């Protein structure tokens, strides 16, 4: 009887532990966009803002996963050393490009409106970027990788139905295929960015 109680207590504890650490994808995205918005509307210099945005991205975006996705079929042509080299290059490129894109926005207001669970691994979170006098309202959807419930990661941004990961993949494919399928040219381009 005593053993059963102990087992039950442990099970309940584990259940509580699991649920308390699981992050809801909508809250996860709202938290990220709120933090980014605070940084962008602050008095920090452009460089400082970019560094802080990079920190957010490093902890919330699956940069390695996106990197391999964007490499597409050419991923299979790389050996382990080259994969490591590519991961490092892509991470640097991604963080620079991502922070440089975002830093141009001053005080963006993003509100999460809904979420759709696609399967165990993915949830799409829908949000809107409020309109300003210069541009209309923009729909932004976030593809969140939820395999590890306690540590969700962003894998794609879909702006007005257009996937940034897919666009990136096609840019890389274009560079490689227009250079006789030489992946080294992509490496060189990323280094120079």
């Amino acid at each position: 009887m005593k053993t059963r109680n102990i087992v039950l207590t442990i099970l309940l504890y584990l259940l509580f532990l699991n649920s308390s650490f699981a992050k809801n994808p909508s809250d996860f995205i709202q938290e990220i966009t709120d933090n980014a918005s605070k940084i962008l509307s602050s008095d920090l210099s452009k460089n400082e803002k970019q560094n802080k945005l990079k920190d957010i991205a490093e902890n919330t975006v699956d940069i390695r996963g996106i990197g391999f996705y964007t490499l597409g079929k050419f991923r299979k042509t790389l050996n382990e050393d080259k994969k490591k080299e590519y991961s490092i290059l892509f991470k640097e490129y991604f963080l620079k490009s991502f922070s440089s894109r975002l830093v141009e926005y001053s005080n963006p207001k993003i509100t999460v409106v809904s979420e759709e669970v696609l399967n165990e691994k993915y949830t799409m979170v829908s949000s809107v970027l409020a309109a300003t006098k210069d541009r209309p309202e923009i729909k932004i959807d976030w593809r969140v990788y939820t395999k590890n419930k306690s540590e969700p990661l962003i894998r794609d941004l879909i702006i007005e139905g257009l996937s940034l990961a897919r666009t990136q993949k096609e840019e890389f494919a274009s560079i490689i295929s227009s250079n006789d399928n030489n992946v080294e040219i992509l490496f060189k381009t990323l280094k120079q960015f």
Partner: protein
Amino acid sequence: MKQIIKYSVLIIILQLLTFHAFAGSDGTINISKNNKPVKDCFEKINRATFALNQGLDKAIFKPIAKGYNKLPTPIKNGSSNFVSNISNLVTIPNNILQGDFKSAGTNTIRLIINTTLGIVGWYDAAEAMGLQKLDKEDYGQTLGKAGIGPGCYLVLPVLGPSTVRDTVGSLINLSGGDPFYNITIKNDTHYFSEPDYYSTRATNALDFRAKNLGSLENLEKNSVDFYAAVRSLYLQDRQKKIANNSSLTETMDNSDWEEIEEN
């Protein structure tokens, strides 16, 4: 003679659409696993045209768009509403051709209300009455909906990204499919003239360019291959518009990511 040339060009393009066995680059752009890849058959020429368009954009369109953006908001909104109202003349027949009679009805009522109460479309009076603006439809989308593939990707001088199918769609406008073209250029109605058509088209393009000034500048600055990025975005956008589906799962293919899991 002019008509014969026009229809010959149309027939040739339709042939290209059906049997697009082109020489040249074999670079393909995969939009979705459910759709055949779109070939960039004329990539070298397309890239050259793209460079020309970028030059024109920097020298002419971008400075004008910047000036347009400085206009008071009511003027910008008014001209945007005006060109949007005229675009209904192409959207309505396409709604009907696609079998979407409900949207055709809504757009017709919106066109009547906005042309009259909205003072030739300057105000969106219909929206104030609860008739929300619907997505634009064109002949390229209708051809796509009918199952005709996009053919090769094209970059047209001045007009920008397109496909063979979308170019045919635009030519249908000039062959009687656009009532506004018919009353301004094709037929002498005494009420409208050619400048009315061209100035409206130019305002439409300017409105689009002005609304996307920041985003295009940002994209160009942060792209490793701007041409490929624009091509990808154009083709994704057309696919989304032809599908007339706002569902995210339609535009995203989970299997694209599957192999990543194995890494």
